[in-house]
C-alpha cells in the first residue's frame, strides 16, 4: 500500500443544496405575515366563542374585490411568463395592469369600509366590526407595500432590466402578490363563514 505512488485519494464532499437567499427570505417573510393573520383570525374565533357578538352582513363590495385580486394575480402571472420569454413590452404592460388593479382593489376596500360605516358599523364598537377593520386594514397595508414593490419592478422593466436571465425581482414580486391575493381570499372566506 505505502509504495503506491500513483494513486490519488478522492474525497468529494457535496455542495449543500441552496436557493437564492433573497427568494428564500421572501418565503420566510411570507411565513411571518401568515402567522400575523393566523393569530388575528384565531383571536376572532376565540372572541366570537365568548358571545356578545354583533351580527351584520359583510359588504358585497368585498366580493368584487375578490374578483379584482384574482384578475390582478392573473395579469401578474402573465407578466411573469412574458419575462421568462424576454417579451419586454408585455412585461411592462402586465405589471402596469397589475398595479392599476392593485389600486382598484384598495379603492374597493375603502368603499367597503364606507358601506360598513353607512350601516353604523364603526371601528369603535362591538369587536365583530372592529376585527373587520383591523383585518382588512392590515391586509390593505400589505397590499400597499406590494404596490410599492410593483412600482419598483415596473421601473426595472422600463429599464429592460427584467429578462429570462434576470428573474429574481420579478419572481419575488409575483410570489408576494399571489400570496396577498390568496390571503385576501382566505380572509374573505373566513369572514363569510364565521359571521
Amino acid at each position, binding site marked *: 500500500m505505502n509504495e*503506491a505512488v*500513483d*494513486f*490519488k*485519494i*478522492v*474525497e*468529494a*464532499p*457535496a*455542495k*449543500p443544496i*441552496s*436557493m*437564492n*437567499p*433573497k427568494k*428564500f*427570505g421572501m418565503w*420566510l*417573510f411570507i*411565513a*411571518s*405575515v401568515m*402567522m*400575523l393573520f393566523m*393569530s*388575528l383570525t*384565531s*383571536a376572532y374565533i*376565540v*372572541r366570537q366563542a*365568548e358571545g*356578545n*357578538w*354583533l351580527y351584520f352582513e359583510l359588504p358585497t363590495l368585498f366580493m368584487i374585490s375578490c374578483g379584482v385580486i384574482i384578475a390582478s394575480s392573473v395579469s401578474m402571472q402573465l407578466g411573469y411568463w412574458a419575462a421568462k420569454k424576454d417579451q419586454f413590452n408585455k412585461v411592462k404592460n402586465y405589471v402596469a395592469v397589475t398595479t392599476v388593479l392593485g389600486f382598484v382593489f384598495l379603492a374597493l376596500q375603502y368603499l367597503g369600509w364606507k358601506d360598513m360605516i353607512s350601516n353604523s358599523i364603526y*371601528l*369603535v*364598537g*362591538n*369587536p*365583530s366590526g*372592529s*376585527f373587520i377593520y*383591523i383585518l382588512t386594514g*392590515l391586509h390593505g397595508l400589505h397590499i400597499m407595500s406590494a404596490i410599492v414593490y410593483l412600482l419598483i419592478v415596473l421601473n426595472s422593466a422600463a429599464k429592460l432590466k427584467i429578462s*429570462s*436571465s*434576470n*428573474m*429574481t425581482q420579478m419572481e419575488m414580486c409575483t410570489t408576494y402578490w399571489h400570496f396577498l391575493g390568496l390571503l385576501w381570499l382566505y380572509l374573505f372566506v373566513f369572514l363569510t363563514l364565521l359571521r
Partner: protein
Amino acid sequence: MATLDVHHHIDTHDHDDHGHEHHHGNFWTTYIFSEDHKVIAKQFLLTGMAWALIGGVLSVLFRLQLGFPEANLSWLKPILGGWLTAEGKIDPEFYLALVTMHGTIMVFFVLTAGLSGTFSNFLIPLQIGARDMASGFMNMLSYWFFFLSSVIMFISLFISTGPAAGGWVIYPPLSALPQAIPGSGLGMTLWLVSMALFIVSSLLGSINYITTVINMRTVGMSFAKLPLTIWAFFLTAVIGILSFPVLFAAALLLIFDRSFGTSFYLSDIYIGGEALPNQGGSPILFQHLFWFLGHPEVYIVLLPALGITSEIIATNSRKPIFGYKAMVGSMLGIAILSFVVWAHHMFVTGMNPFLGSVFTLLTLIIAVPSAVKIFNYVTTLWKGNIRFTPAMLFSIGLVSFFLTGGITGLFLGNSAVDIQLHDTYFVVAHFHLVMGSASFFGMMAGVYHWFPKMFGRMMDEKLGYLHFWLTFIGVYLVFFPMHYIGIAGFPRRYYSWTAFETFSGFADLNMLVSIAAIITLAAQFVFLFNFIYHIFRGKLAPANPWNSTTLEWTTPRLPGHGNWPGEIPTVYRWPYDYSKPGSKEDFIPQHIPYSETPESNLPHENDQIKLDLGGAGVGGHKH
C-alpha cells in the same frame, strides 16, 4: 430556471473575489453602519450588556424595598428624585414600574436581542463557512431597529408618569387604561412603540439567520455536520418567525384599544363608579395571544444558550458530544412543543378543567426533551478530560440551573398544583433559574469562549473564576429561598408585606435574598472590568486557543471582512471529533479530510475515501 441559478452562482463568486478587499471603509461604515456580521454582533453584545446593567440595577432597587421595607433610601434621591416618598421609600407605583421594566429589559433586550443578536450573528457565518450573512443590509437594519427600540424604551424610564408598570406581560385592562395606573399612560405607549420596533428587528434578524443557515453553507457542511450551536440558533430563529408576529397582533389590538377606543380586550369596566363605554371585549383573549408568543419566547431565550453550552462542554471535556442526533431531536421537539403549551400560564383564568388537563399533559411532555438534553450534557462530561475554563464553568452552571429550575416546572405544570402556586414567588424562582439564570450563564459562557475570536485577545481566567463563583452562589442564594417564600403563599409583584402578620416571618429570608442580589450584581463588575480591560490589554490570542474543531477557529486571529483571507475551507467531518482513538491530537478540525487521518478513521469513514488508482486526471476535484 437553470439560467437563474447560474446567475446567482456568479453573484456569490464575485463576492468571494472581493471579499477581502473591502477594508477601505471609514470609521462610520466600519464601526457604526457596518454590514459585517462580526461588527453587528459586537454592537448587539455591547447594547445588550448596557441593558443588562440597567436591568440589574432596577432589580436591586426593588429588592431594597422587599428586603428592607423600613429602610430610609433618601441617599438614592440623586438617582430616583421624585420617585422616593417623603419618608425615603420607593413610591409604590414606581415599584411596579421597576418590576415591569426589569422583566421587559431582561427577557427581550438582554436575553433575546443581546443573546441571539450577538451569537447568531457572530457564529452563523463563521461556523457554517460563509463570508457574511445572506443580507448584510438587512442585518444592519435589524441592529438599528433594535437600537431605536432601545432608545425609546430608555426614554420611557425618565418621563414624569414613569415607564410601563403593568408587568412584562402587560395584561389589559391594567395596561389598556391610562386611568388605571400612571404607568399605563405615556409609558405604556412608548413600551408598545418600542416593542413593535423590537419585533421588526427580531424578524429581520431571524429571516437572515434562517436564510443564511440553509443557503450559505460551505461545501460539505451538510445538516448532519452542523455544530449544535447553529442548530440551536436556527431553530430559535424559526420559533421567532412564527411567534413574534403573534405578539405583534396582540400589541396591535392593544394599541387600538388604548388609542382608538376599540373594545378587543375591554368590557364592563367601572372607574370611580362610572362605566366605561367599552363593551364586548375579553381580557383573556390578550392572555392567549400573549402566551402564544410568551411561551415560545422563553425557548427563544433558552435555546441559543443551550447550543452554546453544547459546544463548550464538548470542547472542554475533550469528548464528542453525547447523542448528537438526540440533541438535535430534542431541540426540534422543544421547538414544536413550545407552541402547544401556552395555556399553562392561564390555569387560573377560569379555563375549562378538562382543557387544563390537556395542557398539563402537553406541558409535562416538554419536560422529556429537556431532560434528554440534561442527560446528554452530563454524559458528555462523564469521564471527560475536563478543562475548567471560565466558559466551561458557566456552561456547567447552566446545566445546574436548567435542572433545578426545570424540576419546579413540573410542579407548576400540574394544573391542580398551580392553583396554589400561580403568581407566587415559586413561579419567580422557577423562571429565574430555568430561563433567567440559565440563559444568562449561557451568554456569559459564550462571551468567555468566543472573546478571543471577537477581539483577538484573551480574558483573564482568575477573574473569570471569581466572577463565576460569586455569580453562581449568588444566584442560588437569591432564587432558592424564593421557592419557600412562594410555597408560603407570597404573591409576586407586591410592594410590601409588612401589613400582613402571616408574612412577617419571612422578613429575614427576604433580607438575605436582597443582600445576595446586591453581591451578585457587584460581581458583574468583575466581569465588566475583565471584559473591557482585556479588549485593549489582553494578551494576544492564538488563532485556536481552545483546540476546537469548528470552522471559526480556522480564521486568522482577527478575521477581517469576508472572514477567510483565502478560500473558504471545505468540511469533511462532524464538529465533535475530540479524543478520537488513534489520532495524534485530541481534536480533528472539521476541515481535515479523512484521507489525512488514516490512523483514526473508522471503517465507514474509510469507505468514504475512494481510492482512484492511477486516474490522475479524473480526480482533480479536491477542494
